[in-house]
C-alpha cells in the first residue's frame, strides 16, 4: 500500500515538475515574443526615419540642380537676345538675383542637412537593420503565438533598411568625391 502511495506521489511530482518546466519555457517564449514585437516596431520607425532622410536629401539635391539649370537658362537668354531681354523685361536682372539668392540659401540648407544626415545615418540605418534582425530571431523562437505576418513584415523592413544603407553609402560617397 505504502509503495503504491510513494509511487503515486513520485509520479505526481514528476508531472508537476514537467508542467512547471513547460510553463517556464512558455514564459521565456512569451517574453521573447514581446521583445520581438518591440524591436519590430522600433525597426519600422528607424527605417521610416532613414527613408525620410534619403528622400529629403535626394529632393533637395534635385531642387538645387533644377535651380542651377533655371539660372543657366536665364543667363543664356541674355546672350541669345544680345541684351534685348533687359528692354523687354525691365526687371530681368532682379529675377536673376532672386534665383541666385534662392540657390545660395538652398546650398546652405543642403550643406546643413547633409551634415545632419551624415551625422545620424551611421546610427539610425544600422540600428533599423539590427532591430529588424533581432525581431525576426525573437519572433521565430516564440512558439506560443502565430507571428507569421510580423516576421514577413520585419523581413521586408530589413530588406528596405539594407537598400537604404547602400543608397546612403553611394549618395554620400558620391557627394564626397
Amino acid at each position, binding site marked *: 500500500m505504502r509503495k503504491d502511495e510513494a509511487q503515486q506521489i513520485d509520479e505526481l511530482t*514528476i508531472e508537476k515538475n*514537467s*508542467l512547471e518546466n513547460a*510553463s517556464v*519555457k512558455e514564459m521565456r517564449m512569451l*517574453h521573447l515574443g*514581446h521583445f520581438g514585437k518591440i524591436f519590430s*516596431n522600433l525597426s519600422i520607425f528607424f527605417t521610416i526615419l532613414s527613408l525620410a532622410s534619403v528622400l529629403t536629401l535626394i529632393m533637395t539635391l534635385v531642387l538645387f540642380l533644377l535651380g542651377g539649370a533655371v539660372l543657366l537658362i536665364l543667363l543664356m537668354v541674355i546672350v541669345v537676345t544680345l541684351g534685348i531681354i533687359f528692354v523687354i523685361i525691365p526687371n530681368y536682372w532682379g529675377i536673376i538675383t532672386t534665383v541666385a539668392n534662392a540657390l545660395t540659401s538652398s546650398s546652405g540648407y543642403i550643406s546643413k542637412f547633409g551634415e545632419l544626415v551624415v551625422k545620424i545615418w551611421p546610427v539610425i540605418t544600422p540600428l533599423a537593420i539590427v532591430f529588424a534582425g533581432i525581431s525576426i530571431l525573437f519572433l521565430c523562437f516564440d512558439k*506560443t503565438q*502565430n507571428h507569421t505576418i510580423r516576421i514577413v513584415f520585419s523581413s521586408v523592413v530589413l530588406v528596405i533598411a539594407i537598400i537604404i544603407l547602400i543608397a546612403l553609402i553611394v549618395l554620400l560617397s558620391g557627394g564626397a568625391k
Partner: protein
Amino acid sequence: MNELKLKLKGQRNFRPTICVDGKAVKFKKNKFGSIETKVATEKNSVEITIYKHLEIKSKLYILWYILYFFISIFGIFDVREDKKCIVYDCKFKVELNGTTSVDLTFNTSKDEAALAVESEANVEEIKNVTYVDQEAKKRMKIILGIKIALWVALGITAITLLLIKLI
C-alpha cells in the same frame, strides 16, 4: 504499444501549451491551420493538459514590464496588451486502445466549455474551462499605475532639466 493522435482546431492567434502525461508535446501545423501530433505510449490511458499562460503572470512581471517600458522608448513602441486576461484550463483523461484519435476544437462562445471533444474513445473530462484571471487583471492595473508614475517622473525630470538650462 498504444498511439494517441491528437488534433487541435479553432485556435486563433495563439498556440497553447499541450502536455500529455505532464510532458509538453511538439505539434505540427497542417495545411488547414489546425495543429496535430502523435504520441506513442505503453499506458492504457493518458492525461492531456491544455493551457494558455498569460505573460503578466510571470514571477518577475514588474521588472519585465519596466524593462519593456524603457526598451520601447518609454512605452511609445510597446505592444498593446490583451486586457481580456482569458485563461484556458483543460484536462482530459483518454482511454487508449491501439490507435486513438482525439479531436479538440476551441469554442468561440463564452457560455460553452473551452474545448469541444470529438473521439471514438472514452474521454473523461476533468477540467474544461475558460475564465477571466482576476489576478492578471489586478496586475495589469499595477503595471498601468507604474507606467503613469514613470511618465510623471520623466515629465518632471524633463521640465527640471529645461528650467536648469534656461536659468
